């Protein structure tokens, strides 16, 4: 599935992040290649959020290096990372429900049209592109003026993903895009991730759901208590093994048997 001919586009080496006395990340290494979906798994508090925030320029690592397209990088803000081509889609902060799909899609990068000395937002282009990009992702909008609030959770994630892709993301970081969704919507988002990956974009998919990860992932890295517990290739690991690694082994086995099935 994964063509491992590409060199990694983003490499994080020995990342440490301390918040005062708290060591949130203790030497995490991770990389992602173009056209690959690399899943980052971990239970709550494992350091997933801190790690992706370091990747997307929100936090600066205390120690460690970030290599982007082979060059050492230090992002001062999410804006910097975005300009370089690293886009992050956050779980709940992706869209503004009261605004139209077009206004959301172009937020922060509005196309402008000059009329004499004035510059207006070019709604004609904006609407047309929005409709087209959404259709590519398999979502039919009634109208580009439709408020994002009228879309389902999965569709909102898709708008955010389509937006990141349209604006030239080379690395797409998805922060638990499926955690609040129903079965059908989850399937839609996962198929969107698959489309994005096939377009040659490097996808970092953060989740704590093993089945979602296995559905689209090429490689899997498990974080636990601020450390990586290793990276596995697709086909080299079973769902049970992944689940155990995430939860930290023994206790989970005991818990699972008492519940009589897979959690």
């Amino acid at each position, binding site marked *: 599935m994964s063509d491992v001919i590409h060199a990694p586009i983003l490499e994080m080496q020995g990342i440490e992040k301390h918040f005062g006395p708290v060591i949130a990340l203790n030497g995490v290494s991770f990389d992602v290649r173009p056209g690959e979906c690399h899943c980052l798994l971990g239970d709550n508090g494992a350091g997933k959020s801190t790690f992706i925030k370091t990747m997307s320029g929100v936090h600066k690592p205390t120690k460690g290096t970030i290599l982007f397209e082979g060059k050492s990088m230090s992002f001062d803000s999410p804006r910097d990372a975005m300009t370089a081509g690293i886009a992050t889609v*956050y779980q709940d902060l992706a869209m503004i429900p*009261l*605004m139209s799909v077009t206004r959301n899609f172009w937020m922060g*990068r509005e196309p402008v049209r000059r009329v004499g000395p004035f510059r*207006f937002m070019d709604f004609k282009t904006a609407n047309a592109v929005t409709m087209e990009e959404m259709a590519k992702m398999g979502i039919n909008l009634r109208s580009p003026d439709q408020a994002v609030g009228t879309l389902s959770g999965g569709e909102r994630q898709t708008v955010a993903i389509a937006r990141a892709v349209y604006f030239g993301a080379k690395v797409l970081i998805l922060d638990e895009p499926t955690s609040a969704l129903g079965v059908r919507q989850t399937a839609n988002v996962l198929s969107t991730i698959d489309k994005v990956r096939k377009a040659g974009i490097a996808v970092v998919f953060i989740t704590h759901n093993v089945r979602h990860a296995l559905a689209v992932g090429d490689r899997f890295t498990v974080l636990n208590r601020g450390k990586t517990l290793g990276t596995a290739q697709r086909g080299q690991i079973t769902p049970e093994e992944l689940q155990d690694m995430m939860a930290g082994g023994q206790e989970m086995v005991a818990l699972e048997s008492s519940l009589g099935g897979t959690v």
Partner: protein
Amino acid sequence: MSSTGMATDERIRKTSRLRTALVRPELGAIVGVIAVFLFFIVFAGDSGMFNPQGVLNWSTVSAQFVIIAVGACMLMIAGEFDLSVGSMIGFAGMSIAIMSVTLGWPVWMAIILTFVLCVSIGALTGTIVVRTGLPSFIVSLAFLFILRGFTIFFPQVIERRTIIGGISNAAEGDWLAPLFGGKLGAPFFTWLADMNIIATYSRGSRMGEPMVSGIPMLIVWALVLVVIAHIVLTRTKFGNWVFASGGDAQAARYVGVPVARVKILMFMFTAFCATVFATCQVMEFGSAGADRGLLKEFEAIIAVVIGGALLTGGFGSVIGAALGAIIFGVVQQGLFFAGVESSLFRVFLGVILLFAVILNTYIRRIITGER
């Protein structure tokens, strides 16, 4: 709608025209304006409310409301309030009076310096709100008291009174004052009078002059502000940032919208509008009083809410706010023409505010799909 040929989702009900129309923020205000005009045509139609002087009367009052409502509207859409608007009106008027009358500076200089001063105070309020993350309700409430306090303090200390007059004399021949206190189209109205289309004074010192001698600059300012604010809000990149900042500041920041700058600019714009109001008022009355502008902040907010804006930000319309302001002006003056006790105006305000907020909450649910 779709050009891709895919089947539309059969579960999406066709939205009725009524629902589509309801989602426009201005709808309630349009209905309100029609209702209010119908009401007064029926009950005060023969009272002179709709002859040229009557129209001028309520349009001038409406224009006052419009000017401050435009500022409050943009700020509310950006997700903030400014409760210091009323105090700012008093403060700006007093500032012009002290500079031009007490200090004897040219009126144009007093006006320009006052604009600089007031817009800077707006910027200060905005900066405090953005930096501290405190609710703008509290920060601007502090400025409500601070500015009102100074507005009473300075004339008391300097002139030993709270009303400063004599601005009309000072403004005589000034180049900037007519932009606020002047009238537009005077020759046209004289011509109308000569043609016997509009009434003229039949006695007194102004005999032969038309009763309506021109369109007050106040109305011109109101129209210009509405048009500019509406275009900026709906048709420009900056307008999109205003909606985004009020809709969800964090989401806007993530995509690179300079939320802090947008909010501070909107506080400055609100202060600008309050200063326009104050300057027009001072030029019209020829005096500044320490109690000017009382309660104006609330009237502005009510007009904006009637206009369909959400108190929580991110949704609203300048046209709606202007219509809300017109409802105000027409009802306030209309009750006078209809011979109704004017204190009932406040009752009306309270009732209509309640209705507007309930309607807006319902509309919000339709848009966001909440239940």
